[in-house]
């Protein structure tokens, strides 16, 4: 049995000249775990953000919850977090860092969380120095039907903070064959064509 050489994958990961593909680094090894997903056809990237409105701040000492729905069979392969601005209790601008916030994401169907407990966002914000964008999971996480994922962001300061958590998914495209398309056309045209 002989080895089968595979072609070089050409996608957004390949074209990032800032990345160092040195062997002992986490990122290229995590990227290697995405190999099957990158080579598969009919998957498209889909990104979700929390909160959806970037102007919706996280209130002091509060926890923000939200849920998204992806297609069943999607893979969560990475994430990133950005802390944007903050105001103090008097409404004046104040410096903020991702360490002011804690994040968590969970597959609603299985109840399996991304982190064991809320994780400090400071270690989950890529800056192209200590961590690359996006932060890859060690293995892509399969999300089954009904494809519900919850995310939470917890503010542990007295400041009101605007921030956003970005989740990267690979979503299977629906294959439309000719019979399906013909049926849809008949439906749309009322049976005449």
């Amino acid at each position, binding site marked *: 049995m002989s080895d089968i050489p595979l072609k070089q994958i050409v996608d957004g990961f390949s074209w990032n000249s800032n990345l160092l593909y040195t062997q002992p680094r986490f990122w290229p090894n995590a990227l290697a775990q995405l190999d*099957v*997903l990158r*080579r*598969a*056809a*009919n998957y498209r990237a889909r990104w979700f953000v929390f909160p959806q409105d970037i102007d919706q701040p996280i*209130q*002091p*000492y*509060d*926890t923000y*919850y939200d849920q998204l729905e992806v297609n069943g*069979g999607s*893979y969560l392969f990475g994430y990133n977090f950005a802390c944007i601005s903050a105001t103090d209790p008097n409404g004046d601008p104040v410096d903020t860092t991702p360490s002011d916030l*804690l994040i968590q994401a969970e597959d609603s*169907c*299985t109840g*399996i969380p991304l982190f064991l*407990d*809320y994780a*400090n966002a400071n270690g989950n914000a890529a800056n192209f120095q200590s961590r690359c964008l996006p932060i890859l999971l060690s293995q892509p996480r*399969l999300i*089954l*039907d009904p494809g519900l994922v919850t995310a939470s962001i*917890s*503010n*542990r300061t007295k400041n009101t903070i605007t921030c956003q958590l970005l989740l990267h998914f690979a979503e299977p*495209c629906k*294959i*439309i*064959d*000719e019979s399906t*398309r*013909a049926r849809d*056309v008949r439906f749309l045209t009322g049976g005449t*064509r």
Partner: protein
Amino acid sequence: MSASGIPLGRFVFPLDLNNRAYVPNLFNGCLQRETNMWERVQNGGGLKLLCPGTKYQTPPWVRMPPQGRRFSPISSISLPTNDGNDHLVTSFLVPLGYDGVIVTVVANYSGQGFVEGSGDLTWRLQLNERYVKDYGNLQTSVGSLTIPTNIQNSIFLLSGQLVQFFVNRSVGSVSLVGGRIVCGLLGWYWPR
């Protein structure tokens, strides 16, 4: 030219770029096998069927199972100085192997001069490093030890979590006189 204006009809060429269908390849087969396997596990009841643990007839966070154990850490401190810092009143650690739920919260001040919602006193309930939603910035007293208030949104606890109840006295709260801060959390654990 077909009636739709697309050469050779719309069945040959895609309607637009988004309708391009790539032929599934060997790697799609790998992913499909993984999906099928996990769907079978999920349809059979999920990974919990494979893991040792306790099954309950009713959700244990709604009704305490016979194996459950109640907890009620109640503690008090004298009125702290008005330094604007958080002062720990009561805390406990969820036992390993047990999950739990808090069904009653008590946050009280027994002294004089406190106006509800004034911000002079703020109670904060913390699970590990995060504050519980709606209980991270509590500016009114809640319930009492004789008449505890059952909260509507039960607070879930996970094995090994550190639960802490703080009180914060604001710098401008000079009207508070004497008394003690009383905090209590009532609920139960159950074996996971």
